């Protein structure tokens, strides 16, 4: 997994012919797609929890959303760096994707607030699950709204360099996407294992007392 990441990082600069700012594309876009994927996974596990009532899905949903939020924050940071490099501003409200990520980041931060201020138990699991489902529905609607909002708040839109890719660039992109997805998956398993261990330990301690 680490090898794949290193490969992606080393191969990527070789074929970047649009200047140095283009290189971040290989990191930024896979991270963003992975963040969406994590949010989707979290919502899917949340749906399973509501549907089947399996307690294990609560932790899985939480961990997936936690990973999604970390990757979402990374997307905001890398996107901001890219905006600085190619448009000479740190933040641009006319970049739909960045604004969407900001909204989602706020939304999922509220998810953690909700989760940590409820008593542990099935009710917390179900409330978090419902909120996670709202998040996934919010993504397309917010995107639509942000795209509409651009018309009246920002009449001029930045022209972005086109994403036409040569074969090698596309291959590099796919490779770094695979690497980031793998990284997210490994992080997800590690955190899940850690959290499960925590829960088991707590149970054990309660039994012993």
């Amino acid at each position, binding site marked *: 997994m680490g090898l794949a990441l290193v490969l992606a990082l080393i191969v990527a600069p070789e074929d970047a012919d649009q200047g140095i700012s283009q290189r971040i594309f290989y990191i930024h876009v896979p991270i963003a797609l992975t963040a969406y994927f994590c949010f989707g996974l979290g919502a899917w596990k949340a749906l399973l929890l*509501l549907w089947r009532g399996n307690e294990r899905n609560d932790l899985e949903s939480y961990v997936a959303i936690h990973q999604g939020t970390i990757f979402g924050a990374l997307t905001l940071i890398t996107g901001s760096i890219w905006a600085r490099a190619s448009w000479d501003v740190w933040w641009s409200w006319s970049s739909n994707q960045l604004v969407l990520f900001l*909204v*989602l980041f*706020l*939304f999922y*931060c*509220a998810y953690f*607030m*909700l989760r940590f*201020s*409820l*008593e542990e138990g*099935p*009710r917390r699991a*179900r*409330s978090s*699950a*419902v*909120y996670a*489902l*709202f998040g996934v*529905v*919010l993504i397309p*609607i*917010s995107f*639509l*709204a*942000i795209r*509409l*909002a651009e*018309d*009246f708040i920002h009449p001029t839109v930045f022209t972005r360099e086109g994403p036409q890719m040569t074969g090698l660039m596309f291959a590099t992109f796919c490779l770094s996407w695979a690497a980031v997805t793998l990284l997210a998956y490994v992080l997800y398993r590690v955190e899940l294992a850690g959290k499960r261990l925590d829960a088991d330990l707590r149970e054990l301690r309660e039994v012993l007392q």
Partner: protein
Amino acid sequence: MTYLADVAALTRKDLRVELRARDTLPAMLLFVLSTLVVFHFALPEGARDDAAYGLLWVAIVFTALLGLARAWVPEQEHGVLDGLVLAPSDRSAIWLGKTLATLAFLLATQIVALPAFVLFFAPLGATALAGVVLADIGICAVGSLMAAMAAAARSREVLLPLLVLPLAIPLIVGGVGAAISPEGERYLLLLVLYDGVFAVLSWASFEYVVTE
């Protein structure tokens, strides 16, 4: 039909409680009027009408939040919610009743606030008014579910705005767009879409939030 009767009974109960206690509605009214006065001083001299429309939406959302924060307080204080959950009716009727009651409060507030806005700041067209009503429906639908979630939390007054504001962003886009865009109908469509999707989602998921 019994479902509608349940909803009507629950809405009537909320309205009657409010008529007797007068906890929420006067507070919302006073809040929205004070906010409009504050906006007069917050807007720089010679600001365009567009800025005032934006601020109107800030006032609407925060007034709704004020009402929603109080929405489940009577139920919490006297353990009414447990009784309602145990009652032999569909639980989503509780959500629908609360949504309708909150919507009634919000609309009643706006009957005073919108003429005041027109008087102080800028005129409102038919599209803008339709936008206000549609956004009210959306924010009450989502908000009463979120308020029910937050009611079980330790820090419910702090939590509710955090939960609702990110969800309300498409509503604000739709409402402001309906007020200032020449093609306001597109924004009304966005609001209708939002209301439909989130009302169904809230209706379907309310049961999971209130049962133990």
